[in-house]
């Protein structure tokens, strides 16, 4: 498994480590982080999704695979890839694209796949104005390695290409008459590439019938790197309702419909509602956090107010506090506002 990353590889490197939490600490194979690197002649950033794979041909080539599975790291879902691979093999496809149904009115935001009854794709349209189907590509592909290799080599030499799978590579393969198949996925799936969607995906974990249940029937274990935290302590003032609270927290305030990560402190009289609190955040007495995302290692001082109840539940404005920020006592941060540190070069 290779993880392609353009920016900020340090944090990811530390998190993935030798891959042991995911049982990927193998002598052969395992997991590797693949940032752009300098070659003898030139070094360049990944120009697009297809180019990122192209630049790592030597990594893939080492394993002489029959198939290559291409995934995105910012999607939240559970899927058995071997089912998809089986469908790929049975169809004898050159490339299989995982798709899911989206409401037709939203279809113009996605890469839309037009396929026959058999699943064979005859057209691929990136963000069509007038979509002909509601099957959206999930950005999950299985390729035959030889097909992928040839396609990306040719794409690399095409001067007008943006080197993107959806925009360039897949339409080109169709043009060449290759066998592309759609594999329909029915479970929960969310792209968390925006603040709103990241917030929404967290909210989807909550409630009596969560849209994305972490436990229950058909659920597979999700592995992660674990830190050694003691149990969470809930004080006498704690009131927790429809929320997930990870270990290592000390909670004496009120938490409604929120996700609290490891090692957080919520003091008495503090209120957290419809928010996502990342690890090691301290929320001091009387602070209020509504419809917000607070990144790791922040301190929210007494009686600060972050975010507001939205006017419309459907389009809430999410406030964000970037990591390692301190929000002073009684400071107000408006709905939809983002505060973060200036990046130091």
């Amino acid at each position: 498994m290779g993880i392609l990353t353009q920016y900020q590889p340090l944090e990811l490197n530390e998190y993935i480590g030798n891959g042991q939490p995911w049982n990927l600490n193998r002598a052969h194979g395992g997991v590797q982080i693949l940032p752009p690197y300098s070659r003898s002649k030139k070094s360049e950033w990944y120009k697009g999704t297809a180019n990122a794979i192209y630049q790592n041909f030597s990594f893939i080539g080492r394993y002489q695979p029959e198939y290559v599975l291409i995934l995105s790291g910012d999607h939240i879902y559970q899927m058995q890839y071997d089912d998809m691979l089986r469908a790929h093999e049975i169809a004898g496809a050159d490339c299989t694209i995982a798709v899911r149904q989206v409401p037709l009115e939203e279809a113009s935001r996605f890469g839309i796949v037009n396929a026959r009854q058999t699943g064979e794709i005859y057209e691929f349209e990136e963000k069509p104005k007038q979509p002909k189907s509601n099957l959206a590509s999930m950005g999950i592909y299985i390729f035959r390695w030889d097909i992928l290799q040839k396609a990306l080599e040719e794409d690399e030499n095409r001067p007008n290409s943006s080197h993107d799978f959806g925009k360039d590579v897949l339409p080109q393969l169709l043009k060449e008459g290759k066998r592309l198949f759609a594999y329909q996925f029915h479970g929960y799936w969310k792209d968390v590439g925006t603040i709103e969607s990241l917030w929404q995906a967290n909210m989807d974990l909550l409630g009596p019938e969560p849209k994305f249940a972490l436990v229950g029937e058909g659920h597979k274990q999700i592995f992660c790197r674990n830190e050694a935290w003691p149990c969470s302590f809930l004080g006498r003032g704690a009131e927790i309702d429809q929320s997930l609270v990870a270990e290592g927290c000390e909670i004496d305030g009120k938490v409604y419909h929120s996700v609290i990560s490891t090692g957080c402190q919520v003091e008495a009289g503090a209120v957290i509602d419809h928010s996502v609190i990342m690890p090691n955040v301290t929320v001091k007495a009387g602070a209020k956090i509504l419809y917000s995302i607070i990144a790791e290692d922040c301190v929210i001082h007494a009686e600060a107010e972050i975010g507001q109840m939205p006017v419309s539940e459907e389009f809430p404005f999410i406030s964000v506090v970037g990591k390692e920020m301190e929000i002073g006592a009684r400071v107000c941060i408006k709905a939809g506002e983002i505060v973060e540190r200036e990046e130091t070069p």
Partner: protein
Amino acid sequence: MKGMGIIFSNIYDKYLGELTDHRTVASLPFGGRYRQIDFILSNMRNSGISQVGIVTKYHYQSLMDHLGSGQDWDYTIQKDGLSLLPPFANSHDGVYRGKLEALHNALPFLTDAEAEYVILSDSVVQSAIDFRKVLQSHIASGAEVTVVAVPGRADGKRVLPFAVRCDADGTVTDVAIEYAAPKDFLCGTGMFIIGRQFLIKAIEQTVSRGQYHLEKDFIQRQYYQNGLKLHVYRFDQVALFNSSILEYYQNNLALLRPEIRKGLFQGESTIYTKIHNQVPAYYSKTAQITDCLVADGCYLEGSAEQSILFRGVRLGKYASVSRSVIMKGVTIEQGAVLDCVILDSDVTVRKHAILKGTPEHPVVVKKGETV
């Protein structure tokens, strides 16, 4: 670190009744997400001790399962890491009678080692002790044996397995075994530091004479008969003795006090345990949880107070739990009422069942039972 560690996993099994029917004292769950051995093993790891032997006697399957390859404590099962020392088949009836005999079984482990000092410990006392300090103190004192002991436990009533009295400069003036020691005694924690060669000699001499009790046959006897140089390391921080069911119960609930949690978890050292990959605890709209410790994987719809909820506890609607220790994987169905109980792992409490103990006599329900 010039020290190596040896942990006895079974010595006090008999004091913990049904809780140790199927497991060692070392693998008894404690504090919501730990097994007792996590504390001593983490302390050793945090003190830079690279080689640790774990002496086992019986029922050690749960312990082996818990330890796995040792990597969650940053150890590996190999010569210079973690070694399990089960009883050798060639000794008497296969199991040992005391620590010295157990160590006699493990002699090759001790003779092959290179460390200069050996730290001996049970897994009954939970603390966050820094063995680097104990070892420094041992070396500075020039003593042959250092015993780690705590004040405040000797009260003239409680019978202590091992107690010492010493004067102001730490010189030992009295060594007592199984004694209701008065208040001026310090209570031994079962942790000792001994020179490795000295320990090997002691094992050979005592076991060959049919003696097997470390504290009685070696330390006390040598102290009175041969002037053993005994030093006391006084440990003043949090040390929880889980040497009876009642103490085990009280000490679990003691973790609800901030000063106790601080003493165990918020120092420089980290307590490690086996990694489980469970989801965070979920609190429903009807959940009312106050003054509790809650581990990952719990699904809480009822109410709980002054209780310890281990991993994966399911608490149904209108169920209420107070002053209780609820171990891993327990299901408490709708409307059940529990007060002062210890539910061992995977117990099921049926709808509207009522179970009440008292703070002095908590009710214990055995592993896997349905009430």
